[in-house]
């Protein structure tokens, strides 16, 4: 990079940008509306749950599924203090796993201010040099983060199962994330289409945001040069 903006500066800015934006987008896409859209897109507007109290099956339409998801998403993103009650639909192991997911989210939420802090420091340094340097940093960081997320997205698309497993092994090293699809309602609530859908949405919206930031920075850069 020219005008005093080194690759390390750009890389640090890109990491800060990715940290903040990815977590924010993950929170955004965790909502009930997104779940309903993904279910519709996958043609999965109903499924069967096992009733652990009676041993029978219960047909779950889209409405009840969305409500189930809302309870879980509210809990894991910190909107509710207490974990949902086990019993009819979920086992203690499933509740325990979702408590771990909440802990991961609690940690991830710290990345938002941390990423913003990293970006602010880099921006301040670049701005001290010149407005041109600052815009180049923003443009370079946005492009780099967008390319990086796109690369990870392509890998995930080619080998989603391996990527999904790797993700869980990194974030849940205790290994309590494997459930039997034949009996687990959590797996039925969140089948492959959900993970593929949310990964695709987060990735695509991040690339869109990064592109928008890069374009805005280019416009600012052009004005500064003139």
């Amino acid at each position, binding site marked *: 990079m020219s005008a005093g903006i080194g690759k390390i500066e750009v890389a640090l800015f890109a990491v800060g940008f990715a940290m903040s934006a990815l977590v924010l987008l993950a929170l955004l896409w965790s909502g*009930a*509306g997104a779940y*309903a859209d993904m279910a519709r897109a996958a043609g999965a507007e109903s499924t069967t*749950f096992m009733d652990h109290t009676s041993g029978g099956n*219960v*047909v*779950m*339409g*889209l*409405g*009840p599924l*969305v*409500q*189930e998801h*809302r*309870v879980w998403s*509210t809990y894991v993103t910190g909107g509710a203090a207490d974990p*949902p*009650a*086990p*019993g*009819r*639909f*979920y086992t203690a192991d499933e509740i325990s796993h979702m408590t771990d997911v909440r802990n991961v989210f609690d940690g991830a939420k710290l990345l938002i201010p941390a990423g913003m802090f990293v970006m602010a420091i880099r921006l301040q340094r670049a701005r001290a040099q010149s407005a041109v340097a600052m815009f180049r940093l923003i443009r370079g960081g946005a492009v780099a983060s967008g390319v990086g997320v796109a690369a990870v997205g392509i890998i995930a698309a080619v080998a989603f199962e391996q990527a999904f497993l790797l993700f869980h092994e990194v974030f849940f090293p205790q290994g309590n994330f494997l459930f039997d699809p034949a009996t687990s309602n959590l797996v039925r609530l969140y089948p492959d289409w959900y993970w593929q859908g949310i990964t695709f949405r987060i990735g695509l919206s991040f690339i869109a945001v990064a592109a928008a930031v890069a374009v805005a920075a280019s416009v600012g850069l052009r004005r500064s040069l003139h």
Partner: protein
Amino acid sequence: MKRVLLIEDLPQVAQHIQSMLAREKEIEVAGVQSEAEAAIAQIATEKPDVVMIDSLLQGKTSPMDIAKRIRTASPGTRIIMVTVPQKPLDAKAEAAIDAVFTLPGGANELAEVLGVGRAARPQNGLMIAVYSPKGGTGKTTLAVNLAVVLRRQGKSVALMDGVMQFGAVRHAMQIPPATRSFVDLPTAGAMKMSLTEVLWEGPSGVHVLLAPAKPEEVDLIQGGDIGAAMNMLAESHDYVIVDTPSRLTEDALAVLDTANLILMVVTYMNATVANSRSAIDTFEALGYKGRKPILLVVNQSDTPGGMSKQAVEHALNLPIIAEIPTDWKTVSDSLNKQQPFVLGAPQAPVSRAVEALAHGLVTQQRK
């Protein structure tokens, strides 16, 4: 038809519940609101029979606070909270709600919480004569509050003031003085046509048929008309509660003859028990024994110095199904404000006791 308003912020869930409600013949969906303020405004104006609130509703006001505000705005509206198994709710523990519907839930569960369907209303409604052979036992107060509680449980309820001279029901509720009464009903066949025009419906949602305002008008009423009115009310209501005169006059006997069940209000005082014994003897002479249940309710049950429960049951040879504790302040406040205490002070022990009585009656009817 029962009008149901749904408060739900997720379109997919609203659609699901609406499709379930659409299968109920006795239900009409009055609307779906996604925001608390708009919902409460509609409820205050339209006073729907039932409101269903999503317990996961997101917004500035919590679902339970919405329920409390609805209870104030429309006390007669049945409030059902919709939840999911992992967020269990207990309707008995929450004064602001009447029932809980847990998704995904089936049609039977929904019909039960709505208070509709074959299970909820087998044939004609149950006619309950609230009777006491002694004045001052709280018979009228109990009849009014029992009617309101049953209405809150989703039942359609008519309250008839059977005390045709100096009836007190009109003073226990905020009923306008010009409200029409029994004396405005035509006799015989024409009565059915005019019945709905004479019934008064207040915020509690109970349909009230008043006794005449003027004592001399009692002469215009015949015993046969009283029984006919009760039967007609039973055709269109789940419960007909009749405040019955203490003296066994023609009008009192008309009520008691027609009723399916006599709820006898007693206290643990000797005079009340002695008069009740005489009344029960008369009922036996009239052939009520084995034909209609007579159930005892003890009012002011914690008044010291009275007879014991066992002694009263032994003396009257009938079981006591409920004991209502003394609460002079709550009851006198309620009478002075003309607001049933089950609405004004739903958490008071006296209100809880009336609720338990209503629950017992509903359970007994199902059996």
